[in-house]
């Protein structure tokens, strides 16, 4: 839709008022073609959005819904579990996202080398986890991480390490969760970074070589700066992903033990569907919208700045 309107503005923008342009725009067949999409957008996006906003301003107790204004939002600040779930998401952000992006850059760089044989096969291999369904891979991880007779404990047992209580210990549960997410998403990010790598012109490498840069210098002074927009993009999507984490920790630990792996969306689910507090759950959802919006805004600013 955006592109059509741009074209229209160029053609008739000067001598017609905006309203006339709109009228003329609707006479075009193209506008009618976009109607189904617009209807879908209103029904499945705008309406639920408005409803959840409405809900977050109400409280339902015993079947009676009352207007409470911003009370649900005030609760967010007094609720220790909101803080805890955000802290958990923050911990995943600080530890897991750099780890995963670093891995993805390394792998992408390696799998972009001309000397490497079977590059296509390796790329496919690394990318494969990204096509597994969230629920299926989380269940498999839970089985492998079982304290008794789980594959992981059997493996480390071979080298004489005592079995680890992966999912029942607060810190190990976090480690397990981070390992699972990293396995699932590294390949996905690697493919995006690979695309970024391949868009770096060969002249730059040549220029670097002529200037006498070694391998490492070429990587840090040429490749990484060129990858900047791609890295920002992958970091931001991973950040939003971490904030919206649900499936993995729900299946691995249900947010336990002792809320060690409780994330905002999992908390939202518990509040809404377990405690039937849809008003408060909607407020949590809008808090997440706010946080995500801030992150996206920062991303745009970073993208605009030239290094």
């Amino acid at each position, binding site marked *: 839709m955006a592109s059509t309107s741009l074209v229209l503005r160029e053609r008739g923008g000067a001598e017609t008022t905006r309203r006339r342009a709109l009228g003329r725009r609707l006479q075009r067949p193209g506008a009618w073609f976009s109607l189904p999409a617009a209807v879908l957008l209103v029904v*499945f*996006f705008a309406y*639920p*959005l*408005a*409803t*959840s*906003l*409405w*809900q977050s301003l*109400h409280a*339902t*107790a*015993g*079947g009676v*819904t009352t207007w409470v204004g911003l009370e649900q939002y005030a609760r967010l600040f*007094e*609720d*220790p579990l909101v803080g805890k779930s955000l802290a958990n998401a923050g911990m995943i952000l600080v530890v897991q996202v750099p780890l995963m992006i670093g891995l993805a850059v390394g792998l992408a760089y390696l799998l972009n080398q001309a000397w490497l044989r079977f590059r296509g096969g390796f790329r496919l291999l690394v990318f494969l986890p990204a096509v597994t369904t*969230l*629920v299926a891979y989380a*269940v498999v991880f*839970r089985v492998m991480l*079982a*304290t*008794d*007779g789980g594959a992981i404990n059997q493996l480390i047992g071979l080298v004489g390490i005592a079995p680890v*209580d992966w*999912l*029942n*210990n607060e810190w190990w549960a976090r480690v397990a969760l981070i390992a699972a997410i990293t396995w699932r998403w590294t390949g996905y990010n690697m493919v995006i970074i690979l695309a970024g790598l391949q868009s770096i012109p060969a002249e730059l490498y040549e220029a670097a070589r002529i200037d006498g840069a070694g391998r490492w210098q070429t990587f840090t002074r040429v490749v990484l700066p060129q990858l900047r927009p791609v890295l920002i993009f992958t970091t931001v999507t991973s950040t939003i992903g971490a904030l*919206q984490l*649900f*499936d993995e920790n*729900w*299946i691995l*630990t*249900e947010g*336990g*033990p*002792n*809320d060690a792996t409780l994330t905002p*969306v999992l908390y*939202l*689910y*518990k509040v*809404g*569907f*377990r*405690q*039937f507090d*849809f008003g408060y*759950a*909607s407020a949590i*959802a809008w808090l*997440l919208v706010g946080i995500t919006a801030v992150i996206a805004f920062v991303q745009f600013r970073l993208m605009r700045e030239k290094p």
Partner: protein
Amino acid sequence: MKRLTLLAPAAALALLSGCAMGGTGAAAPVELDPDATPTGEITVWSWDVAATALSRLADEFEAEHPGTSIEVVDVGYDNAYDKLSVGLQAGSGLPDVVTIETDRAPGYIAEFPTGLVDLTPVFAEHEAEFDPFKWSAHSDADGALEVVPWDSGTVGLFYRADYFEAAGVDPASLETWDDLIEAGERIKAETGHTLLSLDVATGGGFQMLLQQQGQGLFDERGDITVASPEAVEALTLLKTMNERGLLKNVKGWDGRVTSAKNGDSAVTPEAVWWIGTLLGDAPELAGTYGVTELPAFEEGGVRTSNSGGSGLAIPAQAENPDLAAAFIEYALADADHQASMMAEEGLFPSYLPALEDEYFSASQEYFGGQPVYELFAEQTAQIPSITFTTDNAEASDIVANAVVAAVLNGADPATVLQDAAEQIATATGREIAE
């Protein structure tokens, strides 16, 4: 009827975009007519063996009542409650009959007071015939029944007779939990096996031990009883077991089943439906198991509790509530039909007259010929009743964390329970009971 819960992520993420509707579609309350002649058709939602049982009885019902048609849909356990919550919230989309488990029923009854039909006109005459705990848990604050009790979660103590024998422990001598701990230490010394396997992260049987003492998370006034002496005693018991190396901590439903199959621990304090799990998942252990009453907290104290079980309800949006009520009465308030569900699908009746059936006195091969159902039948009427509130789900989560803190991290039970009580008070605005 417990199952591992995976969730349709779509349902949760739908909430992110606020898929649940505001308002509850308040319509005129549905009045059941006990004298109505059932006609037409209804749809029933259930899952697993429960759906199997209802399908079987639906066919019989249709044959006996020409002009009726009953469709039983197995909606699957994993998203049954998401569908139910959204349907009640939206005021549409639900069938004529839904299945609700006992631990979930009070929350739905309190949260959606107009969402479920008052079943009293048809079922009041049967009140004395049902498990009294189920009846109260399935009724609203005014005593109106909204979910008909179906199967009971009467708790007993399953024990590995072979381990007991190896350690020279007589199961009949276990009067109290202290006796059991003592026996557990002997069994561990003799056989190397732990006493019991628990999923501590989800609260590991704490609420079962609380109900055994006639206590819930709240009292009749709705005040918080999480820090009561009974609660401290229950948590201290779990902590003591762990300190003496008698607990095996497992993860989730499948962890518990695997642990039983592997023969890790000597006892399993669990509801009668655990029999179905053993038969289905560990048939090779036939002959190694016995059942006795749960040990009491004091000599002469209550020797059972409740864990799980379920019932059937009619949403207010049902199109044919009279036929729905007639079918529920046919299936659940009938000794023969309830007994048939025990024999065929392993669902233990909440309907007490059904327990007179000869099936319950029959010896069970799996348990070395012991007539185990007799014991559960005797104990069903003894299950202490407890009070549920709208905040049970939230309180359960907070209490589960207290259990983890005390049992796994070694914190003091009285302190963590007091903290939990205060946390519940802050979250719900309720008072802490004196």
